């Protein structure tokens, strides 16, 4: 693919084609894993990047596209894969990361919603599951995980944008991710969920105002703060950082909190560009900077976790 491919948004079919092509072009490094399917039975593919054969390494997980309208998020996952494949051996950070970690990447966690934003309603947020008791469609996948599920900050109304679903992991998309991470919890040490917008580096908790056990470590100079400082230094852009609940508002049922409670103690949610002007309609001309600054933050944190 040409570099310009990554500076555009792509339809779901294009992304499925890209996943297949990426595996075919890099058979020794990239493996495609089917972890489940969506409400409308679209496949959920995870790319596993693994540089060295041999015993299972520790791993990092990145998911993109939980919320359908946040198009920059899948664009980042594609960007990350391209960066990993193109700059291994040239860029110190990515070389170090791939030498020490396997990487699992889920480019589109909500394929039904993503397709719907391309074809019908650009502003759709949730998945597309049909509620049995109501005419309303979709649950908020980031309210559907089992972390203080459906308490203050979520809604039990199927018509709400923050509908938590019928029960924890009621949605096949969140269930598939949870199942995969449960079965890989001994190897996955670092979790990233990529969202937009508002430029933030968040970590648990969002489901309570309580601080995580290792709050000071997550916020410290060598983690979120260092990542935000690097973005500011290299890209002259300001990212806020902090625990989700205190930095934004209470939002229970999020994937990052659930992952943290599962035992993956380095769990982050990134909110990419911008701070509101373009919001979910971030122009393609901004994709490069949005992805590069998120990549800087991700690499900063990943290197620190490898050290630890």
């Amino acid at each position: 693919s040409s570099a310009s491919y990554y500076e555009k948004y792509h339809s779901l079919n294009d992304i499925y084609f890209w996943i297949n092509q990426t595996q075919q072009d890099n058979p020794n490094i990239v493996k495609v894993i089917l972890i489940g399917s969506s409400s409308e039975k679209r496949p959920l593919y995870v790319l596993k990047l693994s540089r060295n054969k041999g015993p299972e390494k520790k791993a990092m997980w990145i998911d993109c596209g939980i919320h359908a309208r946040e198009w920059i998020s899948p664009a980042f996952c594609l960007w990350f894969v391209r960066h990993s494949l193109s700059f291994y051996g040239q860029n110190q950070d990515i070389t170090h990361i791939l030498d020490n970690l396997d990487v699992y990447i889920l480019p589109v966690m909500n394929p039904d919603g993503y397709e719907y934003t391309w074809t019908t309603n650009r502003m759709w947020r949730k998945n597309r599951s049909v509620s049995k008791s109501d005419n309303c469609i979709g649950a908020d996948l980031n309210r559907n995980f089992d972390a203080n599920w459906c308490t203050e900050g979520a809604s039990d109304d199927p018509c709400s944008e923050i509908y938590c679903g019928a029960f924890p992991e009621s949605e096949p998309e969140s269930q598939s991710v949870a199942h995969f991470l449960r079965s890989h919890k001994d190897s996955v040490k670092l979790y990233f969920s990529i969202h937009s917008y508002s430029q933030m580096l968040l970590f648990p908790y969002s489901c309570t105002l309580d601080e995580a056990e290792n709050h000071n470590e997550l916020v410290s100079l060598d983690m979120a703060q260092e990542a935000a400082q690097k973005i500011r230094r290299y890209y002259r852009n300001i990212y806020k950082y902090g625990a989700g609940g205190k930095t934004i508002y209470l939002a229970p049922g999020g994937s990052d909190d659930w992952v943290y409670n599962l035992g993956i103690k380095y769990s982050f949610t990134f909110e990419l560009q911008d701070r509101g002007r373009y919001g979910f309609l971030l122009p393609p001309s901004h994709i490069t900077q949005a992805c590069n600054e998120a990549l800087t933050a991700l690499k900063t944190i990943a290197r620190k976790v490898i050290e630890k």
Partner: protein
Amino acid sequence: NSDQVLSITPKTQEHVDILKNVSTQYETSLWQPDSPQYIQEEMEVHLYVPARTLNTFSVHVCFRVLLANAKELIEMQTKNETTDPR
């Protein structure tokens, strides 16, 4: 003639109620916060309003236009480029 994104900061509880109503009863999309239930005084609200709705309602609350050409941006992003080398 185009969809717009408005930034509105409610100053009173009445403003909050108006915004909650507008973002649930009309064909608008709340960009920020995630849901009307989070709207509160002094919180910046971003609201996507389709052109057809812009013509039919008015809110008596100060606002600024964040994005005046949302429709054009959407068209630009979904443009099918046959020249793409892939």
